[in-house]
């Protein structure tokens, strides 16, 4: 499912946090959103998964205006892993995954065998079968993310939105989470902090700064030393990976001028 964002602007308490956003994610592609803290990444994504309403512009899924769809219909097409994933409530991992079926169920309807199969399959797919009966709040960061990805998969969406899914994870968990997301065969829109992870996992990158998209394209073309100096205020050195030849970035502080 293709995602088209056109002329999107979001306001919170009268302040325009992102503006004039144009973004396109083709079906099955992994599109990364990068930018310094406070640049508007989360605001943009929150608008895409409908925690916020757009002040202007549209988010279209295969041409349908997402914000004009019913909330449940929207959630059947687009799932999200928001940044907040903590809850004081002592749900089991299986119960958290089962919440993914919510947009498919009528309020008072019973959980069907099909719902249970989908949830079990989703949890197995992320390698979390053994976590099913564990208490979600006691899981490690990586385990939590896997359970939340399973919840998103149980939603059977076509599009997955991720807000910094690798936050607070160790490097093995980061790679694991991104590979799981990649392997799900969905259109993915993800805000990422680690530029090297973004470069190796994304098909296209959008750079956001001051609430506006300032560059976009394939990672190789976008992640230039000039842009990184401009947007992130760092000196970047591109070196080819000794094995794959993929450009990798080494960072340093900008020399005082």
């Amino acid at each position: 499912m293709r995602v088209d964002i056109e002329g999107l602007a979001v306001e919170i308490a009268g302040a325009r946090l992102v503006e004039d956003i144009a973004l396109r994610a083709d079906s099955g592609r992994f599109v990364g959103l990068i930018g310094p803290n406070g640049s508007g990444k989360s605001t943009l994504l929150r608008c895409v998964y409908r925690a916020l309403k757009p002040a202007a512009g549209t988010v279209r899924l295969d041409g349908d205006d997402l914000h004009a769809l019913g909330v449940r219909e929207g959630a059947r097409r687009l799932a999200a892993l928001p940044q907040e994933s903590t809850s004081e409530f002592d749900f089991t991992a299986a119960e958290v995954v089962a919440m993914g079926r919510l947009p498919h169920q009528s309020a008072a309807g019973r959980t069907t065998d099909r719902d249970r199969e989908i949830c079990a399959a989703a949890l197995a797919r992320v390698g979390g079968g053994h976590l099913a009966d564990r208490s979600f709040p006691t899981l490690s960061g990586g385990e939590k993310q896997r359970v939340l990805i399973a919840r998103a998969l149980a939603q059977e969406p076509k599009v997955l939105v991720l807000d910094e899914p690798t936050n607070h994870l160790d490097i093995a968990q980061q790679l694991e989470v991104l590979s799981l997301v990649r392997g799900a065969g969905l259109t993915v829109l993800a805000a990422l902090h680690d530029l090297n992870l973004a470069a190796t996992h994304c098909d296209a990158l959008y750079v956001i700064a001051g609430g506006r998209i300032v560059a976009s394209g394939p990672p190789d073309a976008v992640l230039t030393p000039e842009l990184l100096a401009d947007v992130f205020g760092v000196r970047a050195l591109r070196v080819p990976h000794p094995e794959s030849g993929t450009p990798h970035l080494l960072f340093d502080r900008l020399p005082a001028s």
Partner: protein
Amino acid sequence: MDCEGITRALDRPGPFLGTYSPYVRSGATARGEGVPPVAIPAQATVPRTTGGPPPRRLPVPPLAGALAAALLVSLVCGVGLGAAGVTWGETLRYMRAGLTGGSIAPDEVAAYTIVWELRFPRALLAAVVGAGLSAIGVAVQAMVRNALADPFVLGISSGAAVGANAVLLFGALGSLGVWALSGAAFASALAAMLLVYLAARTPHGLTPLRLVLTGSAMYYGFSAITTLMVFSAERGESARSAMMWLLGSLGGATWSSVPIAACAVLAGLGYLLWTARGLNALAMGDETAAALGVDADRLRRRLFVVAAAVTGAVVAVSGAIGFVGLMVPHVTRMLVGADHRRVLAVAPLLGAVLLVWVDIVSRLLLAPVELPVGVITALIGVPCFVLLMRRRGYVFGGA
């Protein structure tokens, strides 16, 4: 360069990475040609265990059944036990007579009145109030995502008491007839709730600390208003009446006070059960709720009205009974887990049984003096709560 060995080691599927190699050039996978979905088998990942064993959970249908049976027995006990010595046989005969419209001997009228006109509605009302406070405790805790929330702690109960008091003592809203008391309690519960919510709210949402601090401050404010009203009214027994409103009592129960409270509690419980899945989503946070197709703002607004209506109806007949709405949801979650479909099937029954017995104890402990219900809920509840919390692997509020 001597990286040969290192990179070769990375080529092999590692324990964490499964078949995935992070160094595949993204362009190759990007086009999606012949790339199989990456599924990491469970055994390929070393489970990094941070928590204890899975929490033990009781099956809901047998538990609910047992509690329903216990509630029936408790109601009979509530009717049978009391300071005036009425035997069990007489109690059951009077209850049957009352329920089926049977007849009694003239010399039994006094005992019959005690059983049928005083104790029976009182026991029923205790069950209704216990069920209502527990259900609303569950809803409010999910609504503000806070373990410390309940209608009492947040000042909603004491707010409702202000409205109920205004009707009883000063005859406010007299034109509404029997609805005046519940209506006033509902309106002031809603107002109290909005006041707490708005005062505690920040642009970043509700923080637990602000909420509880605001609620506690409001509680003292509303309690002061209630006390002031009771003492300024030209009626006797001011002090005892104030105790009744601030700590709760079922002493005023009559048959006429049962229907409105029961209907409000049943309707509120019905709505909560209907929206239990939405409560689960809300408990995970507004962002998650939005991603799951739940309109968090709309659901919260509705919960506001339901919580205020049920709290108002309950407080109008029993005063502000504390601790039940806080404790019963917790105990229930310890028994059956956090899924609101399970919690809402058990918590009201548990609350009903608890409050029937609390009322029995409050009548008998220092008979013929009646203790406020809130005193007994705290006396029984606090040790039970602490014991349960320490014994089970209960993580609400942080592991």
